[in-house]
């Protein structure tokens, strides 16, 4: 099994006719991802990588049965594309581009919650369920089907973690890139719970970083989870990030310090790791 995307997922690509869209569609198909079509308004009836292009998401779904979408579009077009996908009934949406206006992402989030769509990104490398589907821009080299799930804010960290898991023989069920933008489609706790529901995921590695505000939310669910959670936080030795004025300090409080994040996660039952090598060691100790 895997979460969010499997070999049975029917994936469409929004922005399939663009440079990045085309390039990664080809890569995703090569990996075996079940790409069923794409959307670029005004380019309906074109074909990319043998897949039909449609003018709207609704048309794409009607013709291909797509239930998952990956967005490869300039940041300023993401809000509309995401809301289009969500309203059309897409149940899992991957927003690859970075620098999406924050207010836009808030609205995308509202629509997603209202329609029961899971969104990851913006600024994510995507998601991969090794051996089944690769959605986004991740290199396949690091990944191998196995029994540990990962969720990370950073693409490069995801690769390193997966590489470590693969080399140590654990392999991965699914690796989720939460995304690096300031406001994200999903929070750590939400993804952790999806892994918790997956019987094949025997442990989860979550990696956060300084300045994020979603790591703390993981603490709300970890204590009640059966699946062990390993946690790494980047930026332990980084100078503290900037605060958003008094108001930011009042709202986000002490959130954002890497050291405090890691301690808080450990306090709530996560297994803190420092380097990638700590991961297989911890998994071994846990008997995974």
């Amino acid at each position, binding site marked *: 099994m895997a979460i969010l995307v499997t070999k049975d997922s029917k994936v469409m690509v929004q922005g399939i006719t663009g440079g*990045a869209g085309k390039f990664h569609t080809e890569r995703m198909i090569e990996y075996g991802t079940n790409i069923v079509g794409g959307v670029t308004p005004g380019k309906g009836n074109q074909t990319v990588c043998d897949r039909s292009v449609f003018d709207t998401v609704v048309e794409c779904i009607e013709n291909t049965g797509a239930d998952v979408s990956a967005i490869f579009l300039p*940041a*300023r077009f993401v809000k509309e594309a995401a809301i289009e996908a969500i309203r059309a009934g897409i149940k899992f949406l991957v927003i690859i581009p*970075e*620098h999406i*206006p*924050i*207010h*836009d992402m*808030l*609205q995308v989030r*509202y629509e997603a919650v209202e329609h029961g769509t899971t969104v990851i990104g913006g600024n994510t*490398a995507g998601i991969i369920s090794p051996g089944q589907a690769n959605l986004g*821009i991740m*290199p396949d*080299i*690091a990944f191998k089907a196995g029994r540990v799930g990962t969720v*990370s*804010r*950073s*693409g*490069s*960290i*995801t*690769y*390193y973690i997966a*590489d*470590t898991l693969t080399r140590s023989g654990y392999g991965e069920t699914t690796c989720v890139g939460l995304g*690096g933008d*300031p*406001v994200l489609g999903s*929070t750590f706790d939400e993804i952790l719970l999806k892994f918790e529901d997956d019987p094949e995921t025997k442990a989860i590695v979550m*990696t956060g*970083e*300084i300045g994020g*505000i*979603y790591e*703390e*939310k993981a603490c709300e669910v970890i204590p009640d989870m059966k699946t062990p959670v390993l946690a*790494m936080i*980047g*930026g*332990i*030795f*980084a100078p503290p990030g*900037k605060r*958003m*004025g*008094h*108001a*930011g*300090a*009042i*709202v*986000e409080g002490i*959130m954002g310090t890497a050291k405090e994040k890691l301690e808080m996660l450990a306090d709530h039952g996560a297994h803190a790791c*420092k*380097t*990638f*090598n700590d991961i297989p060691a911890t998994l071994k100790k846990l008997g995974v």
Partner: protein
Amino acid sequence: MRLYEFEGKQLFKKFKIPVPDSRLASTPDEVFAAVTDLGGSVAVKSQVLTGGRGKAGGIKLADGANEARTVAEELFKLKIKGFPVERVLIEPKLDIKQEYYIGVTLDRANYTLVVIASGEGGVDIEETAAKHPEKIIKKQLRVDQDMFSFDAIEIAKKIGIPGDLLKNAAPIIVNLYNMFRKYDAKLVEINPLVLTSDNQLIAADARVSLDDDAVFRHSDLKEMGIEMRHEEGEMTPREQQATEWGIPYLDLDGNIGMFPGGAGFGIMGNDFIHYYGGKPANFMDSGGGPSPERIAKMLVLLDENPKVEVIFGARFGGISRCDDFAKGVIMFLKDHGLSKPMVMRMTGNMWQEGVRMFTEAKEENPELFKLVEAHGIETPIEEISKRAVELAQQAKGGK
């Protein structure tokens, strides 16, 4: 993108939030002229993109034009948290009866906007929040939700704005909220909102920070003379250079030049070096899919930094392809040459192609690669990190 106080107040005016009649000046003579025009007692306020200006002596009171010129001369020599004072804002001194705090910011964890208000405005609002959270009023609203006058009146009442001024306070709060939404703000603060002795409410300061990623849809800012800017404080020449090249870069005080792929490992690689006993000389982010030219520029920043004694390179090709990475490194080696040891690892998207290019280039010109230790997927990043620290210690020892 942070705005100067005077720019924030321009926006306040546009949204009918009352601000003092003010003049901007960039020389003591202009200050003199402005105060001659305004008359009476004034506040001369340094315009810098940082907080804590008051405590740092960046705001001076003056009686009349001559005294104002004198204090301005001092202010123009000042640097506040590294920011030089290039302009001052001159405003009539307010006769303050009470100071309030009104702010709007993002609650990212809850995906809302949040209006924050307090009856105790002024510089110590954060302390108030920490010690007397009951004195802080918060109201969450969705970004797609209008704020109404009755919401604002409720807030104004809770922070103790007198009854007869509720109707004046409400539009200030509503308009601040509207301004936040209209301009894709991350933060807008009136601190303090002053109640004067003649019962006027007036925004004595303005702190506004906009979302850089949304500035593209606010072309009217440019028409108002508000230019896109970065929020950095004083930059080192190298940071300045990096900024010009569009490379996120920060000087640190170690000796290992960090040449990572992606911001994520940029931050975590720093921790790794520390864990193994080393100290990074910098932060750097390659950005998504850097071109060979950009890769080469990143290396120039490190090679030309005399504090850097070893370069630690790590590339996990995702959207960034290792062949482009290799091309950039080779371009740098050929055009610029490497003057210090570099240990690096390359894996991910197109890594074999990258390794092949390295091999071919090295065969062609082995001299170029004499300081380069290039690894592929077979060597864990921890080993590379350790090796970098080792080389740095050798370099130190060698001195």
